[in-house]
């Protein structure tokens, strides 16, 4: 446990992923299949693409200590806007994509403004936005609509060897967002605002700005997922977003990837790791032909168990002065002293100690 403690959270995520891969390969081999065959790898990677795109954006929102529950409807709306605008005409691909992204950005902007300016909790704000857009979808679209031209369908159907283009795009976007987080001011500000808004303000940041940007980017990546789905489906669909349960799953993947639900700490690569764990899990269970209901049980247990492993090693200790620590090595002894940890979300140790 102590060695685990010193590791970077992202490393732990990938250790978990390696473990999942190993167990998965073993299980899959028991039914006479090759886990690392091209088709299986493609299945896993395809499973990662859409959720990965959504989770990348969700990572930013969670980092800023908000949530986005409106991603499913943004995905559906994007697939419909894209497919109906393209209407089978390759020449309209570019305007369709631009329109889709613009609409998604507007929804994200709305979310961000409601959260920062009206001070509505992100959970409720995006739940409300989701309902509003859902009403529009139900009213405007009676089922699948539009046609995606062949050229655009290639996006979802093409692969470089076993690696689908969609996965490459998803990873490219992850790299881009990683870059934004690591190498742009707004990225740094997201960590600051999510970590401690007071410190952020005292350091001269405008705390609303990164939150709004995060929501916009999240809607944009959801739109990306919608475009990808439109490409794979060949049509737009008003239910494709809610079918995947992408709202809660993406949040689960983000947290599974080691990002703190309260914000301020996390990484895109951790999220990708979390998404990969889900994809491997799903792939193995599908190959094993596990009963679909049983799959849900396994997913539920894995989410909680994995996050439990991470959180056991999070809070850092108030530096001890004297070597012999005994139980106090466990950091701020706020809870376990009477046999019970106080809570899942203590203020960081530094605060408690001071």
């Amino acid at each position, binding site marked *: 446990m102590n060695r685990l403690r010193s590791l970077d959270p992202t490393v732990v995520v990938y250790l978990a992923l390696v473990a999942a891969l190993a167990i998965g390969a073993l299980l899959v081999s028991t039914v006479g299949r090759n886990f690392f065959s091209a088709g299986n790898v493609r299945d896993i990677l395809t499973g990662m693409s859409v959720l990965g795109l959504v989770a990348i954006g969700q990572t930013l929102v969670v980092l800023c200590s908000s949530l986005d529950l409106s991603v499913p409807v943004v995905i559906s709306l994007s697939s419909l806007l894209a497919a109906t605008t393209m209407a089978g005409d390759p020449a309209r691909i570019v305007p369709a994509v631009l329109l889709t992204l613009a609409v998604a950005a507007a929804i994200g902007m709305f979310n961000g403004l409601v959260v920062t300016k009206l001070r509505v909790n992100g959970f409720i704000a995006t739940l409300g936005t989701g309902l509003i857009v*859902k009403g529009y979808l139900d009213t405007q679209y009676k089922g699948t609509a539009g046609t995606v031209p062949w050229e655009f369908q290639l996006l979802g159907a093409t692969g470089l060897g076993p690696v689908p283009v969609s996965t490459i795009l998803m990873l490219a976007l992850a790299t881009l967002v990683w870059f934004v987080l690591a190498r742009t001011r707004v990225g740094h500000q997201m960590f600051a605002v999510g970590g401690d808004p*007071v410190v952020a303000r005292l350091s001269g940041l405008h705390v609303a700005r990164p939150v709004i940007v995060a929501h916009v980017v999240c809607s944009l990546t959801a739109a990306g997922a919608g475009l990808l789905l439109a490409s794979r489906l060949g049509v737009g669909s008003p239910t494709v977003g809610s079918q995947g349960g992408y709202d809660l799953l993406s949040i689960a993947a983000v947290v599974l990837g080691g990002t703190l639900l309260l914000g301020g700490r996390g990484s895109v690569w951790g999220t990708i790791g979390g998404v990969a764990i889900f994809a491997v899990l799903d792939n193995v269970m599908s190959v094993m032909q596990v009963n679909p209901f049983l799959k849900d*049980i396994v997913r539920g247990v894995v989410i909680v168990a994995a996050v439990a492993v991470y959180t056991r090693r999070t809070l850092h200790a108030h530096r001890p002065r004297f070597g012999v620590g005994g139980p106090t090595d466990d950091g701020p002894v706020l809870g376990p002293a009477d046999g019970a940890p106080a809570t899942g979300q203590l203020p960081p140790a530094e605060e408690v100690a001071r």
Partner: protein
Amino acid sequence: MRRSAREVALDLVSPQRAVFLLLVVLLVAIVVVNPSFAEPGQLMRFLQRVAPVAIVAMGQFFVIVSGEFDLSMGSLVTAQVVGAGVLVGQDGSRTVPVLALMLAFGTLVGLVNGLATTFLRVPSFIVTLGMMLALLGAVMFWTGGAATGNPADEFRQIGRGGWREVPVLDFVPYAVVILVVLLVLALWYTHRPAGKLHVAVGDNVATAHHAGVRVWWVKTRAFVISSLSATVAGVLLVGYAGVHPSVGRGYEFTAITAVVLGGVVLGGGRGWIVGALAGAVVLEALFVLLNYAGVPSTVRSSVQGVIIIAAVAYSALDFRRRRSGPATTSPAGGDAAPAPGRGGDTSTTSPAHSGA
């Protein structure tokens, strides 16, 4: 409490009481659209319908006010509904033992949620999300898709029946009586020392811990209460509507929305259980109004979304005013030597508390 009518009126339109104002507006609108709604019998039937949602919202209230989330309520309702169908079957004499078993199961789910949140330190959002998936999967796996039928009428009477031909009220459903009893119980509990601790823990965990409060137990209790409320709601729904695997779907979000509409702050530490109850009634009244007004069913969710955002933004107005104190841009707001540390008023500048 000697207050002028003007004060009362001001209080009603104050952001904190927004939900009651909204409720009055909705009820008046319903009566305007359909005057027969105001008849006692109709009102009672309306309350019978509200009861399960209201009870779930009251359970969720304790979790949210303690600073946590319970996303597993909907799945638990489904599990209990389906479980009741299977376990009671056509044998009415099993009503009491099955009720006991359901309550025990509810308690167990609450304990698991609570202990995983406090001991494993997994955010409750994630714990209860996992529970939501696992519970639903488990009950479907167990029953092979929950295709069993409605339980015996004795069991269903709890949620469906009532005293008929009561003077003035015409019809008094058992569900309404249960709702009232639970409300009284909940009000009593919130005024008990143990009940008050939920708010204290939700407001400031560290302070509560330093004051000797068993934080883990307070939070676990909240989860047990919410699971039990989902269980009771399940019992009522079996009676009201019957057994079907889609009963309970989305109840967790409805409950959270109701609680937040009722002026309870996500993240904990502030709220009144009657507000949560009112929030639930508002949601159901909105449903009724849209039904009566013949609003196309497809645009209803949009109307709901707008009202939710508007109502919560309105009550946030008040929260902001109270939190920021006299110094309009002061992050700490009220002390000669305020520490701009996290223990203070982070929510003033915090763009969003995800809470969990």
